[in-house]
């Protein structure tokens, strides 16, 4: 340990404010960057899931309709 007491560790012989401000900003920005990246990834994943859900629901509806209606047949005109 380079310091005699905890208060000496905090004060750092007058350099405490400079050192601690740097470490605080570093910690906040790094943690913020990491949390933001995780949240962005989660919301991208949820978007994919939602898109897939609506698509599968839409296609289920479409096939249901098709079964109840007449099938359209293309007849060559010549």
């Amino acid at each position, binding site marked *: *340990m*380079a*310091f005699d007491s905890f208060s000496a*560790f905090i004060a*750092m*012989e*007058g*350099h*405490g404010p*400079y*050192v601690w*401000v*740097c*470490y605080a*900003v*570093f910690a906040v*920005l*790094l943690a913020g*960057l*990491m949390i933001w*990246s*995780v949240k*962005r*990834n989660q919301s*991208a*994943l949820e*978007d*994919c*899931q939602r*898109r*897939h859900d609506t698509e599968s629901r839409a296609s289920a509806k479409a096939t249901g309709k098709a079964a109840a209606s007449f099938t359209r047949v293309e007849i060559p005109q010549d």
Partner: protein
Amino acid sequence: MWQWFHKLGSPKWFFGIATRFMPWLLAGGLLLLAAGLVWGLAFAPKDYLQGNSYRIIFIHVPSAFLAQSIYISMAVAAVVTLVWRMKLADVFVKAIAPVGLIFTFLSLFTGAVWGKPTWGTWWVWDARLTSMLILLFLYGGVIALDRAINDEKSAARAVAVLVLVGVVNIPIIKYSVDWWNTLHQPATFKLTEKPSMPMEMWVPLLLSVLGLYLLFGWLACIRMKTEILIREQRTRWVKDMVLAGRK
């Protein structure tokens, strides 16, 4: 060799690899960084000239290292984008530019706060500090340019060109302390020479540098995965994966 290169370009393959490596990168990065910072803050001896303010070095130097390494890796990816049109390279540039911006800001900020008790001033317009400020603007420019162009392919090409033009700044940053008279002290780390600082300071610094590199790896992986998800959401493999994750 070429098969490996093509595999690397496949977003699906990368997604799997990144998922496998990420827990290790995160755990290793946090562990090394915490060890380096606690050691540096509480246990390393104080500097005979600068006193305790020098303890800022344990975050200043890793941030500055990352700021420059990220730009260099972006430049490599930019070449790959322009020459081989590899999608993953563009994904990489887009995903890590904000990370580079944050680390450049951190190195400038911690440098300014360190400068006050050491040089008696927050800021001087000397070569090292100014070229780092230009690096900050370059990152900002890359992010802004990418957002300004809607078409994915033209955005990728424009961003790659901007990154490559800006790469001229990197040697200026590196050699600025040797070429010009500056308040900034010369490089702490040199690969070719023995460290100029005692081991009790050098080892914690090495630990925090390595830790931050690993954390950057983790950040790059998760941010690239997000970008891939956004771009490839219509593809079959993303659909299959989303379905598999749900069950």
